């Protein structure tokens, strides 16, 4: 996968040079900055590593002049707003943002736009109209989980929902999608709901607490990613039958799934957003600088793992990390075309 991406990248570079009207020539003196609000979990670490890997290659190939990553220490809106103002002063041509808040940064983003800086937000998007948004359809993600369960469990039953961090937009969206799916399929009931904060240990604790009060026939667990393994541990400790736990692409979740699959044919699915979405945002920013016509709202594709491609994805996932893909220029162009 990685080498394939590399080859396509080289091929694009070569093709661009031959045609003489390449994207590279136009953006080779442009500088792009990444403004990132948080780095304290494995997903964000993988996101930064993907950025580093893809952009350093792009810089050494002369696609852009610089692509520097900046992370704020405290995950604070004020701090990131100040950081963006600094980046404007430092004369970056484009700023790629993973924002601490959808609205809180709008002032700084507007300032950047007024200063002629291209702003592309992804994952944590900003609502300021002058910026581009590469958003995740979290609602669809939640709905997909229930649709999968409906297919696997034609008789329906009781579900346990593990939510993320209370008060965060992503949590509300995924949960709304799950409830929409439950209403549409009409055969499930959510017997209990806890907040796992997207962390294994928190999910384990919350599930261990609520399990004793739940009915014995829980058939499925809908999750938000980063909480599946903790849920499995808690359910195992309670001695209950293992329900279908939807996973979130973390290495420990996939490993556990593989062990169960080998031992007793356990079936589930896993869905999340690849941390490499930062590289998609990079290429979109590059395309905008290149003068391409890019719609303001783009959608990130999900990275979904199923029973038959589990082994392949597990092999490609770094031990202890999260399943990932890095995006190429072509991927970005396809996403842009898809949104036209």
């Amino acid at each position, binding site marked *: 996968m990685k080498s394939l991406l590399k080859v396509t990248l080289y091929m694009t570079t070569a093709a661009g040079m031959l045609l003489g009207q390449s994207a590279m020539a136009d953006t080779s003196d442009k500088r792009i900055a990444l403004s990132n609000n948080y*780095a*304290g*979990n*494995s997903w*964000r*670490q*993988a996101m930064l*590593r993907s950025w580093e890997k893809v952009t350093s290659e792009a810089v050494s190939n002369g696609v852009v002049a610089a692509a520097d990553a900046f992370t704020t*220490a405290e995950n604070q809106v004020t701090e990131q707003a100040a950081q963006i103002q600094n980046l404007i002063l430092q004369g970056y041509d484009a700023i790629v943002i993973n924002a601490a808040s959808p609205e809180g940064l709008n002032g700084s983003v507007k300032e950047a736009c007024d200063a002629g800086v291209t702003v592309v937000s992804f994952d944590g998007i900003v609502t300021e109209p002058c910026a581009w948004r590469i958003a995740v359809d979290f609602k669809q993600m939640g709905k997909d989980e229930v649709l999968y369960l409906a297919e696997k469990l034609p008789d329906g039953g009781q579900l346990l929902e593990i*939510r993320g961090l*209370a*008060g965060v937009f992503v949590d509300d969206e995924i949960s709304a999608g799950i409830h929409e799916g439950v209403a549409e399929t009409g055969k499930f009931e959510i017997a*209990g*709901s*806890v*907040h796992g*904060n997207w*962390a*294994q*240990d*928190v999910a*384990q*604790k*919350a599930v*261990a*607490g*609520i*399990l*004793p*009060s739940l009915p014995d026939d829980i058939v499925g667990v809908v999750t938000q990613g980063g909480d599946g*393994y*903790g849920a499995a*541990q808690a359910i195992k*400790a*309670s001695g209950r039958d293992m329900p279908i736990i939807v996973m979130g692409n*973390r*290495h*420990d979740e996939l490993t556990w799934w593989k062990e169960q699959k080998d031992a007793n044919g356990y079936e589930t699915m896993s869905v999340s957003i690849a941390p490499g979405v930062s590289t998609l945002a990079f290429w979109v920013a590059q395309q905008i600088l290149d003068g391409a016509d890019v719609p303001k709202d783009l959608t990130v594709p999900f990275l979904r793992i199923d029973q038959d491609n589990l082994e392949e994805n597990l092999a490609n996932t*770094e*031990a*202890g*990390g999260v399943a990932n893909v890095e995006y190429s220029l072509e991927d970005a162009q396809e996403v842009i075309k898809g949104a036209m």
Partner: protein
Amino acid sequence: MTGVATLIRQPWLWAWVGALVVWLATAVFTGGKGSGEVLSAAMTFGAFFVIVALGQMFVITLGPGNVDLSIPACMTLAGTVAMKSMDGASAMIPVGLLLALVIGAGVGTLNYSLIRLLRIPPIIATLSSSFIFQSAAIWWNRGLRVKPPEALADFTTAKIAGVPVIALFVVVLAILGHVLLTRTIYGRGVVAIGQNMRAAHLAGVKVERIRAATYIMCATLAGLCGYLLAAFSGGAALNMGEEYLLSSIAVVVIGGTSVAGGFANVPGLWGASLFLFLLVTMLNTFGAGAGVRLVLTGLIIIGVIVAASGGKART
């Protein structure tokens, strides 16, 4: 009668009463179903709170301004380094434990050096040092989860007759803490410093030596907790300590220790830890939404603190 009066005046009583009330409320709601399992889970997760809260209690008791905010970062660093060094090998378990404790002691030494040598207030010193420890943890393993050795994971999740082994272990730790606080010169010194640092100094208490020992002990316990928690939850994660920052302080205060220092007790730590876990479990069981749950958690914590301090005012 005087026995009852003395009991009511105990500052740790309210946390235990609170824990009992929320547990009974949950049991009534579910018709008694699974109450034993809930209690068993509360003992397991409460044990982790007690470990860090024990250290935090000694620090807070040193008096106004004394608090250790580097606990989450210290837990993460100790857990990460220990898990990576053991790399799943059971033979390395003692080495991993030693590393976690040494890292904790190192963190505490650095914290105290910042406070003493550079004269930085403890809140600022421990908050800023926590950035260094968190970054060190990120640098050490880039957020990758390394699985704990099988034997260690089994130890942290084992139960004897429904009682988690780790809870028994922490009960022993708490008893040691209680003896340390009430029966040793060191413990009495901590309380004396919290009541009046100058008076303690004039009375011959070795103030700085005791403060140093307290910060080092607090961080060492955080390192131990990081080690055990990482083993329990299947590996160290960069955000594993996050909820232990406020919880460690909340447990100390709800447990009846004076937030202004100079007045502490250990039994309250266990009561408060069980109370906090059971409270969230109760609200989850009632199916309360996140907003309602957070508001109720806040109100109930305030209620318990007011009840506890009201009890004290009567004395």
